[in-house]
């Protein structure tokens, strides 16, 4: 969602407070109705059909609208209509800033230019971020990274998977290449086969992002990061990796998952790695890819 990215920037510049940021994000989220709900509310799909598409969406790594069209529940035109109904994330955010008396449109444009300059974004990049479409947002950040498409695909899939299960407004940061990495907690799983690599979900401190992932799967709260939390993250990675392995298999690359591992105490790893910051409800989760 546009507001998550631009709002963080405004917060970092002291233009909006944390409380104002949260209020505006909440307002934007509440105004943005899920496509399935819109489709049922407008009588284009039954609740059962929407539920079926929601379930398939988690298993197939496809968009709601695409699956609904494939199943014959909606036409392309109806999907476009519903997307328009869903609202423009950029305008919603700007309108909320205006209504809260924080910024007018001119100020927004000035700060947007400054946001773009600071991050090296082009006008096209900004348009992609304004789309509030996770695929397009993530691509902007991945295109700035000098990494193989294979890993870009993995990162994009992981972002989509987090969007579907944990946080519809996950925010991604720039990919870093490192040779050494350390974290308090890690859940990891390796791939063997044509292109072996290992992925970890890592966090420090209270590990809130890891706990949020666990809570989304187990539907219970966790106060601390324990083995149950790390196990749930392994399971989450395992499901995500299964989808990735399927996609790669179709492209002729055969990879298979190894049993997952959990690291409950601080661990340092060395080697060629990509570290991708992902913010789940504002909490940092690092996706670490050992290549």
């Amino acid at each position, binding site marked *: 969602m546009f507001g998550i990215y631009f709002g963080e920037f405004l917060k970092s510049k002291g233009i909006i407070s944390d409380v104002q940021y949260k209020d505006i994000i909440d307002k934007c989220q509440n105004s943005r109705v899920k496509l399935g709900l819109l489709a049922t509310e407008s009588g284009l799909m039954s609740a059962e059909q929407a539920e079926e598409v929601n379930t398939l969406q988690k*298993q197939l790594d496809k968009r709601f609208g695409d699956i609904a069209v494939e199943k014959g529940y909606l036409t392309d035109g109806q999907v476009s209509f519903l997307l328009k109904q869903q609202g423009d994330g950029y305008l919603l955010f700007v309108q909320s800033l205006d209504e809260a008396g924080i910024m007018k449109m001119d100020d927004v444009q000035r700060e947007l230019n400054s946001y773009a300059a600071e991050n090296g974004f082009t006008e096209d990049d900004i348009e992609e971020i304004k789309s509030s479409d996770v695929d397009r947002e993530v691509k902007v950040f991945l295109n700035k990274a000098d990494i193989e498409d294979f890993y870009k695909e993995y990162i994009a899939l992981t972002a989509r998977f987090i969007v579907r299960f944990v946080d519809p407004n996950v925010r991604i940061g720039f990919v870093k290449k490192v040779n050494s990495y350390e974290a308090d907690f890690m859940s990891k799983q390796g791939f063997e086969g044509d292109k072996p690599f290992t992925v970890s979900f890592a966090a420090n401190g209270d590990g809130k992002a890891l706990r949020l992932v666990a809570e989304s799967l*187990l539907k219970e709260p966790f106060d601390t990061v324990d*083995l149950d939390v790390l196990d749930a993250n*392994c399971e989450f990675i*395992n499901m995500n990796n299964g989808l*990735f392995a399927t996609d790669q298999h179709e492209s002729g690359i055969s990879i298979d998952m190894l049993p*997952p591992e959990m690291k409950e105490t601080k661990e340092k790893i060395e080697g060629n790695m990509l570290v991708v910051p992902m913010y789940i409800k504002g909490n940092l989760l690092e996706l670490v890819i050992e290549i």
Partner: protein
Amino acid sequence: MAKILMVDDSRTSRKILKDILVDAGFEIVGEAGNGEEGYQMYSELKPDLVTMDITMPVLDGISALKKIKESYPDARVVMVTAAGQKSKLIEAIQSGAVDFISKPFDSEKLVDIIRKAIV
């Protein structure tokens, strides 16, 4: 009430599966964290059905399936799989698995598969 043994190294996966199966009226008689443990528990408990994860440490699901079928040819085993394990699934079915269930679980489909596998 049909008795089920769950074999999966992920406690999360076992918990999600258990909640769905218990809600559907099945009895979970045991939980094993790897294939070797699963084989031992099968020998002791003789459940009506086993749900068997594929990727596990110590002894993987397909090896455990083969071991169980060798000692107990009538054993009914349903494989549990993440997407992307097609070739392993084929091997599992050829080795005597009755069917398979995919993660993330679709409760209705899962229960339907388990019911049919037990009959």
